[in-house]
């Protein structure tokens, strides 16, 4: 897998970036760092999310997703860099930003003795004007009984209260930390529909997730964070276009492995001998495939197997520590 240093300019849009003006982005994160003294935190994160796109934020547990999101919301103060939402500074203009944001934390608690309706009414009052008919329609779609007290809700129903409070004031930017966690498949589908509707209205969605199918289905672009650093930003199509091939070449006789390992775009070369045949296994970038095939053609080949990894495998490769092999 190639190493990749995210380029914030490239990260700004699906295609060529029209502007570098922070005000042109729904989210503009520049060299954002948060140190907790140990290895946790984030380090010089650069990220730009264009208005109207659905942006997936991925990474293994403890990678820094929630830290980035919480810095965006000014729940924690960054130790370096800055984060802007619609051109507003996350620290200086925090209240103005929150008027434009709907936020769902990864873990949250609410008042156990308030009903779902009372909870949403309280948050509606805190946020400003909310159309209660819209709240009712969201509850109908997610099948949430708002008459129950929060402590009586199942985990999934608590999550629905969280989703509704994030959506109910129709914010221009939705920041959702693992939004489908605890939802059943039917409600997950309903949530994806809601996300598509939000996008259709020109609003922006920024969410973290561990569910690759959900990311592939809903996101325009994704960023992958590992150990507090961004390791990849790109649109889904680009990522799948950059797919690599897992090759297994079986030769009649011995072949010099160095010829293959010297080729650009060839990685993780393994050479074994099975029943008198020489077997080479390697990971080959799509643009290097031609050179590999031509090199292999110079020898007596008895079998050629090529397999494209799934999107999940691509992400897993990014998730792993450098040097940590797939299991």
């Amino acid at each position, binding site marked *: 897998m190639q190493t990749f240093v995210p380029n914030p300019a490239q990260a700004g849009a699906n295609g060529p970036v029209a502007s570098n003006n922070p005000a042109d982005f729904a989210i503009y994160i520049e060299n954002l760092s948060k140190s907790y003294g140990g290895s946790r935190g984030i380090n010089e994160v650069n990220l730009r999310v264009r208005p109207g796109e659905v942006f997936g934020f991925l990474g293994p547990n403890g990678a820094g997703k*929630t830290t980035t999101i*919480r810095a965006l*919301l*000014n*729940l*924690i*103060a960054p130790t370096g860099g800055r984060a802007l939402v619609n051109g507003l500074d996350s620290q200086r203009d*925090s*209240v*103005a930003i*929150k*008027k434009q*944001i709907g*936020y769902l*934390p990864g*873990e*949250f*608690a*609410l*008042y*156990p*003795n308030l*009903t779902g*309706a*009372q909870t949403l*009414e*309280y*948050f509606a*009052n*805190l*946020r*400003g004007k909310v159309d*209660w008919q819209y*709240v*009712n329609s969201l*509850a*109908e779609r997610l*099948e*949430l*009984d*708002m*008459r129950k007290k929060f*402590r*009586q809700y199942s985990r999934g129903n608590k999550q629905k209260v*969280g989703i509704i*409070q994030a959506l109910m004031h129709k914010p221009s930017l939705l920041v959702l930390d693992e939004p489908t966690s605890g939802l059943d498949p039917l409600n997950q589908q309903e949530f994806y529909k809601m996300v598509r509707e939000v996008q259709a209205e020109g609003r922006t969605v920024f969410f973290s997730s561990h569910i690759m199918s959900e990311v592939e289905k809903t996101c325009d672009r994704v960023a992958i964070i590992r150990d507090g650093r961004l390791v990849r930003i790109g649109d889904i199509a680009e990522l799948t276009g950059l797919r690599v091939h897992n090759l297994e070449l079986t030769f009649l006789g011995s072949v010099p492995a160095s010829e293959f390992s010297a080729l650009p775009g060839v990685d993780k070369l393994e050479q074994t001998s099975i029943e008198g045949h020489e077997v080479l296994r390697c990971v080959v970038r799509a643009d290097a495939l031609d050179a590999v095939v031509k090199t292999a053609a110079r020898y007596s080949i008895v079998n050629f197997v090529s397999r494209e990894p799934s999107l999940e495998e691509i992400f897993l490769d990014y998730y792993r520590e450098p040097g940590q092999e797939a299991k």
Partner: protein
Amino acid sequence: MLRNIFLKTLRDYARAILIWGGGIALLMASIPPSYDGLFVGPTRNFQIREFEKLTNSFAFLLGKIYDVDTLGGFVTYRYPLVFAAILSIFGLIAGSGLSRGDEERGLLDLLASTPHSRASILLQKWAGVVVILGAIGVLIWTGLMLGSLGSKYSLDGGAAALTVLNIILAALFFGTVAFVIGQFQSRKATMGWTGGLLALTWLLNSLGDSVNALGWLRYFSPLYYLSANKPLARSIGANWGALTVLAIAPLPLIALAVWLYQKRDQNDFFYLFRRTKAIPARLTYSVTEPKAWWLANPFNFAVKSSLLLTFLWSTGIAAYVATIMSVFNDIRDNLINVINSSDLYKNLGGATLTSNEAVISAVLFIFLIIVFAAYAVQQITGWTGDENEGRLELLLSAPQPRWKLLLSRFAGAVLTTGLGVGLVGLAYALIIILANIKVDPARSIGAFVGVWILCSVVEAAGYLIAAFRSGLAVALVGGLVIVSYLLDLFAPLFKLPDWIVSFSVFHQYGRPLLDGLNWNAQFLLLGLSAAFIAVAVWRFRQRDISK
């Protein structure tokens, strides 16, 4: 320590054992040396008689005094009752936390999924409380005995152990009551109800002890059985019957708690009467917008959230005020004679009791201020709970400046405290009119205004500490209130320098019914509250919010 629920409970409370046990042990260790210098010289016996006369006039509050000519008698005077009350507060916090608190955090769901019966889970937690209190008891006993080593008077180790056991059993009783109430109520309400019960039983015992007509009330108070047993006072000695009652009393209570827990749903309450709801013909999820006044903003929300707690505390205190004032005419002359004939009382700086104000100040407000201060400490939990229980994250995602949220919540707490103080003041006013007790109305109003200001300082201090470490705020402010109260109460006894005593908020409150409210001190306290809140806002605006 992670082998079972019992050991895990002990592990979770290791720090609390050291803080509570160590703190009380230090206080206990200071008693014997202080006794050495208390009654000295050729007039020792006379001083002791005077001391007995004086303190017995406060028997309605702290019980009667016995054998103060011995160190054991002096230790028995007031300390067991005061420390039993303090440890009972610890017991009820632990009891409500382990029963309902763990359930509210979802921990009990996980524990219930392990191959342990509900009875086993609850009993292991309760056994944990027993051992935790026992460990605190060992520390207290060690402190007391170490203190006695530095004194010229000796203390019987066995009798001291029985005295400490007495205190521990009383605390265990209230801790176990919290296990029962926790089956019906939320953790916060459990703490409120159990705390109210503790205050009520204190009053039942004190009143029954002092007012003959109300003597029968004492038998309903566990504190009676605590007071009846005085192993360190030679003329009373150990009362094995009372000790047995105290030791046995938690057993049916924990059995009841286990039974209730087995009968109810997990994450739900035990309902004595459950309403059955009609099943709607068609399931609809739409509801009418609940346009309640208290959901309008954080201030209203804070007021509503505190109303029940305020009502419970203030009606309890008002009932006490009404009871004391209704027997006021019976005890007034007796109190005045006893206290006025006490030279020691005068030497300690006590003013001559000639007026109703002086007596009411001595018998009512000395208790009122500490109870209201405890209420103020509990008010702080409403604010710290939002962060400690993970609600603040979402609240701060709304477009509200942090300073506004903090100030709204503080203003709500101060207002409800005012309502509580006002309710008690109203009961006080009503009873003095009905009983035809002559008191200065302006000074009476001043005394209640002073209580309000005192509570506001306590609350402001809580918000200040919470702005730095929300998890520590309640414990730290609670500790400060106790130290501050003891500082003011014992200052004359230990002849503490004025500059030290002036740090006590209770000292700044003074005796407004006697001397009038010291407005300079009150403005100072108000200024201090404002400064505390200003620093709290400054800090809260910039600090990270914990998840």
